[in-house]
């Protein structure tokens, strides 16, 4: 008997007990559905995390942070100037393994005003390299220039979220050339960053733009293809990019002259505070990560006069932890879904055993007209494999439904369906189908033809 006939026979058997077959398949359907949904959800989660990691500078961004000096250096730690612009300049001059470097000085809770708009936000003073290091993109206008830094120009590059708030009535307003006030000091907007959002939000927004306007208010605020989303409409669920969208970038020199030339602590002016809040650089080649570290270590060690009051803050560990947690989620979820598939397989075995006891006579007739034991074996295994196959297909379909529902009820990362996950889930169902048929098939093929013919 060939495979094709076996398949036809299996389909016939399944269709002659539709409800029973469906119940049998249900175990496989649910198993496959949960396996694929789980794979896709973790993949979506991992994708969202990687996207975010990339957006905050990726693995190549390294920060130089302060640390407590070693105990043997405590006595003369003051000889180190701490993190200053000089560090950045030294790195810029000498570290050929570093592609970008920037000092950063921040101003928290700065009053931002334009016309009758007033709110408080943070302002970042840095070099133009701040933009590539932190994966910012200038959408309109230009980045800061070295000349702006040199001459302490009153210019700024603002995030899309800031333009939203400054010109709330004009969703698509081009702010280039406009003047805004930072703590009462006028600055000219020379550039605007792009609107940062998760790829998924972007996709959703574009779909909403294409679809007929259901929520009129939202679509009006977001013209097709337009960058800035409406004040909150576009930002829904994109919380992790809110800070990035609220960026106001000015030259670090301007920051020092305008806002850091006095630091009042307890009503006493402590004089200018030119200490940096951040000092970060980008590694040119991640393959030479350690060499780059050593190089920067030597340079900054020199500017700090040998005082080890700094260390590196790399994202490596963080990335590893995230990858690890994704892996373990996938593994444990996969195991649970796998167990449910196994249970489905046991269901198939059970039903096949019952179906064989119903068909003992038929098996006897088949043996009498010349079927060999292996023909019977194959018939049963193929039938069980067909159950696994159909169950697998329905399970894949069901998992898309499940994912749709999950996406609807939560605004988390959309699941990403990957082909290997589909193949793994499906072939697992097929394998389970075949394997669950083994025991019933062996039992059926070993029936004595005479006994089987007498049965019933």
């Amino acid at each position, binding site marked *: 008997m060939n495979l094709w006939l076996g398949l036809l026979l299996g389909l016939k058997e399944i269709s002659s007990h539709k409800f029973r077959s469906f119940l049998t398949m249900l175990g496989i359907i649910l198993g496959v559905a949960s396996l694929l949904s789980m794979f896709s959800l973790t993949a979506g989660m991992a994708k969202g995390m990687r996207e975010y990691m990339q957006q905050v500078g990726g693995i190549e961004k390294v920060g130089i942070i302060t640390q407590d000096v070693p105990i043997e250096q405590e006595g003369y730690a003051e000889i180190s100037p701490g993190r200053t612009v000089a560090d950045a300049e030294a790195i810029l001059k000498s570290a050929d393994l570093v592609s970008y470097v920037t000092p950063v000085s921040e101003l928290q809770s700065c009053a931002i005003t334009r016309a009758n708009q007033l709110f408080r936000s943070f302002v970042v003073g840095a070099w133009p390299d701040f933009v590539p290091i932190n994966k910012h993109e200038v959408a309109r206008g230009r980045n800061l220039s070295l000349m702006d830094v040199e001459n302490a120009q009153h210019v700024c590059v603002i995030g899309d979220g800031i333009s939203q708030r400054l010109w709330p009535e004009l969703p698509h307003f081009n702010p280039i050339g406009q003047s805004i006030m930072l703590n009462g000091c006028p600055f000219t907007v020379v550039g605007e960053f792009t609107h940062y959002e998760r790829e998924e939000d972007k996709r959703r927004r574009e779909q909403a733009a294409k679809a007929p306007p259901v929520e009129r208010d939202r679509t009006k605020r977001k013209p097709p293809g337009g960058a800035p989303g409406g004040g909150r409409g576009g930002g829904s669920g994109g919380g992790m990019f809110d800070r990035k969208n609220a960026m106001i970038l000015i030259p670090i020199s301007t920051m020092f002259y305008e806002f850091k030339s006095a630091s009042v602590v307890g009503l006493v002016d402590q004089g200018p505070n030119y200490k940096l809040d951040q000092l970060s650089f980008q590694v040119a080649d991640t393959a030479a990560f350690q060499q780059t570290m050593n190089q920067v270590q030597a340079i900054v060690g020199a500017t700090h006069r040998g005082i080890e009051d700094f260390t590196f803050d790399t994202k490596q560990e963080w990335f590893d932890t995230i990858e690890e947690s994704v892996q373990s989620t996938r593994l444990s979820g996969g195991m649970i879904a796998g167990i449910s598939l196994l249970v489905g397989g046991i269901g198939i075995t059970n039903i096949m055993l019952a179906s064989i006891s119903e068909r003992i006579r038929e098996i006897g007739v088949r043996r009498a007209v010349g079927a*060999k034991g292996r023909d019977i074996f194959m018939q049963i295994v193929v039938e069980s494999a067909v159950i696994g196959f159909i169950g697998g297909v329905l399970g894949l379909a069901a998992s898309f439904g499940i994912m749709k529902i999950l996406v609807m009820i939560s605004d988390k990362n959309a699941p990403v369906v990957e082909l290997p996950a589909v193949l793994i889930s499906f072939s697992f169902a097929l394998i389970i189908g075949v394997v669950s048929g083994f025991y019933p098939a062996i039992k059926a093929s070993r029936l004595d033809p005479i006994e089987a013919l007498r049965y019933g």
Partner: protein
Amino acid sequence: MALIELTNVTKRYRVGSQDIVALDGIDLVIEQGEYAAIIGPSGSGKSTLMHLLGCLDTPTSGMMRIDGIDVSRASANKLSEMRNQKIGFVFQSFNLLAKFTVLQNVELPMIYAGVTAQERRTRALAAVERVGLSNRVKNTPLQLSGGQMQRVAIARALVNDPRIVFADEPTGNLDSKTGATILELFRELSEQGRTIVLVTHDNKIAAQTPRRIEIQDGKIV
């Protein structure tokens, strides 16, 4: 050469701790083209003999040849092949597969013989025509009368052109009139040169065949 040749064949069963001798030193020769009836009361061993002759079972001892092939020690697969190629069965209870049509039932032996789909169909149609049921090929067995079902079974037995046809009480489930038409069909087949062996407990049926093989307590008398 004889078609079937049994020399000193015995068959023993073990039931619990008891040894039952079902066949005790049978010597039997059936020639090509014979029409014979094996007759005996129930428990005489006639069913066991038919299972042996039909290659459903092997003897405990002795020698058995069918169409020149020694099957006394044959493997299960070899026996399946013999049943498929050399032997046709007709049962008392018809043993048709209820979920399949008449045509599919008749095609069944050819599936295990590896015959192509097209040839299966032609040969099955010819066999169904031979038993006079050409108008019922699309029906399922449950839509047929007992006599018609037995005709389908006969068509199935003939479809692989076997050397010998065994019929185990073929009229046992039929009324006497229908039974007579079935026996008539067997007689016709015999006249066309088929070797046919009926197994029965009914003397009236055995009286219609040229040869009677009487069996009692596992021995031919």
